[in-house]
């Protein structure tokens, strides 16, 4: 039975929909497509770490303390001893292992609608806010992860084409089109020539763009 379902055309649909199909099945009662969903907060962070190759899959044990921005520590009534410290390897554990302190939560996770720690949460809200974009563009965390991602690609490839195309593939889990690759190469070139970034840095900027793609944070 499972096999029958999973091999069906309906089960394998993605989220693309044309106007005619949308008219015929506006709220997807007929399973004419997959209803896309945004990754949950933990999934967003874990997927970033997975993509750049740093996710530590170790299971169990006490909670870990990924670096907390100073601004967030300042919201605590005892900023100086509000949070612990973990090695980089431990800090890259899955989000579920992050120490849960109800009054001091990871800003990336709360920004992406982490469940309130005081209440049961049957279904999470999915909000879309500009502050999420700020976190995904400017935070120390995301920029560190993008730089690690860039180093991984730079170590594995020589040509910009391969760097870009492999980067896209790792983020989107599909072969990129030649247009997508060409645009990525052009962005890296422009960042070097017009904005004066060096090569490593320009690749890191490109990686940051990848981690911000809708296709990356939405399962579709």
């Amino acid at each position, binding site marked *: 039975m499972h096999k029958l379902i999973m091999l069906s055309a309906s089960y394998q649909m993605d*989220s*693309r*929909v044309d106007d005619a199909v949308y008219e015929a099945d*506006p709220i997807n009662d007929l399973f004419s497509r997959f209803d*896309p969903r*945004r990754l949950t907060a933990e999934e967003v962070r874990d997927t970033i770490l997975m993509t750049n190759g740093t996710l530590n899959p170790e299971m169990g044990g006490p909670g870990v303390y990924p670096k907390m*921005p100073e*601004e*967030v520590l*300042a*919201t*605590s*009534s*005892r900023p100086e001893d*509000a949070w612990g410290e973990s090695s980089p390897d431990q800090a890259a554990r899955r989000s579920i292992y992050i120490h849960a302190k*109800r*009054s*001091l939560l990871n*800003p990336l996770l*709360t920004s992406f*609608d982490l469940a*309130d720690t*005081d*209440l*049961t949460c*049957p*279904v999470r*809200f*999915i*909000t*879309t*806010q*500009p*502050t*999420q*974009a*700020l*976190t995904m*563009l*400017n935070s120390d965390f995301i*920029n560190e992860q993008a730089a690690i991602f860039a180093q991984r690609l730079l170590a594995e490839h020589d040509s910009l084409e391969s760097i870009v195309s492999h980067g896209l593939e790792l983020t989107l889990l599909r072969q990129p089109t030649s247009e*997508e690759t060409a*645009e*990525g190469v052009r*962005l890296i070139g422009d*960042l070097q020539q*017009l*904005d004066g*970034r060096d090569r490593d840095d320009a690749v890191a*900027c*490109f990686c*940051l*763009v990848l981690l*911000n*793609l*809708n*296709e990356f*944070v*939405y399962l*579709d």
Partner: protein
Amino acid sequence: MPHPDDQPENTFCGQTRREFFWQTGGAFTSLALAGLLSRDGFLSKQAVAADGVTPFEAAARVGRSHFAPKAKSVIFLFMYGGPSQVDTFDYKPKLYGLDGKTIDIETKGRGGAKNQGRVVGPKWKFKQYGQCGAWVSDLFPHIGSCVDDIAFIKSMYADSPLHGSAMLMMNSGSILSGSPCLGSWVNYGLGSVNENLPGFVVMLDSTGGPISGAKNWSSGYMPATYQGTVIRANGTPILDLDRPEGLSEAAQRRMLDQLGRYNQRHQQPRAQNSELAARIASYELAYRMQRHAPEAVDVASEPAKTQELYGIDESHTEEFGRKCLLARRLVERGVRFVQVYAGGNHNDANWDAHGDLKKNHAYHAARTDKPIAGLLKDLKRRGLLDETLVVWGGEFGRQPTAEYAEGTGRDHNSAGFTMWMAGGGIKGGISVGATDELGNRAVERPFHVKNLHATILQQLGFDCNQLSYFYAGLDRKLVGVEGAEPIPELV
């Protein structure tokens, strides 16, 4: 919408419970982007708000109150730690003479319930100020000069005499964490008028946040859209607002343009998906926030005279003055709810004067007196006081008696304390309620924190017993399902 009774069994609003919540979440996706998406007719497709009843637009659109609002925004000056009423605004002449005497008196604080205590006479003299002749202690000469615009509530009481739960009570109406804060309710009800700035802003003391930190500006069971945003008066105002060091605006623009191209191409075959469109738009909003938010917090652009009015030119009032001036700039720009903390961390870093009352209160009053008066005067001369409700107070007050055998320190007291409001349609120069002759308990017209919350919502145009949010099978309200009434004398 059909009545729920007309629906088949086991469904909620014609949907499964899970679908309902799922779609509710989808609706809130766009809330921060309401202005943008309403152009596309997006909002008109949404049936109901999260309470499952209110038409969605009523909850999300500006100006849809239950009745004509007096105030557009609130500035809550939170005196964290609990200032002593009998040393500030609640004049008790009899108390001076009892200094040092042990009397029978029922108190309850962190030291537990007591039946006796050593009176600590008020440590400051009181004077009458203004046309109304309000009594104010020498701790607040500047605020004294504003009393004709102030309504004192001298008979406040709260549920808990302990900081953590009392803070949550004052901020969210409940002693347990998990409920949305006052600022969340205000933004839920009124929506935002400035999409470049958050609608609920919190400014903390430089010594740290209050006990329980972010729980005091949490949106609880409401979506994260309604949670408070911590803004700093110095440096980068909002977390992650600044571009990473060394990245030029042009380079970031180039990255965002390419991000937009990738995202547009991805969206094309999914054109009906408003969430994807909303996320694309959110990047442009973020970009605009980066440009506009620094302007909003640029206190230095204010004339020197204005800065002096707030005491920014003097070292002891500089920090709180800057925050008060920032609060004015934010409400001018449409921020609905600004909360400014005077005091943070623990013990004497806030008003929690357990040890040396004189030292503690002299320090905190000196830091805040001039800035607060400056704020009231500045709002007034700009014509903003009519539409800005200013609230002053802590999570509770303090006892007339000493906590320890030695010293002037007072323990917590939630049985009676003073708060005041000004502006936003509140009558000035009045005082309601009273504590007993020792200032210990609210005895005349006692008002619970819920009455204060009800009054604040009323001034913003809401009936606190109507403004509800559906969660876990209940139409939740800031004042609880039991309801509450505003304080009638204040308007």
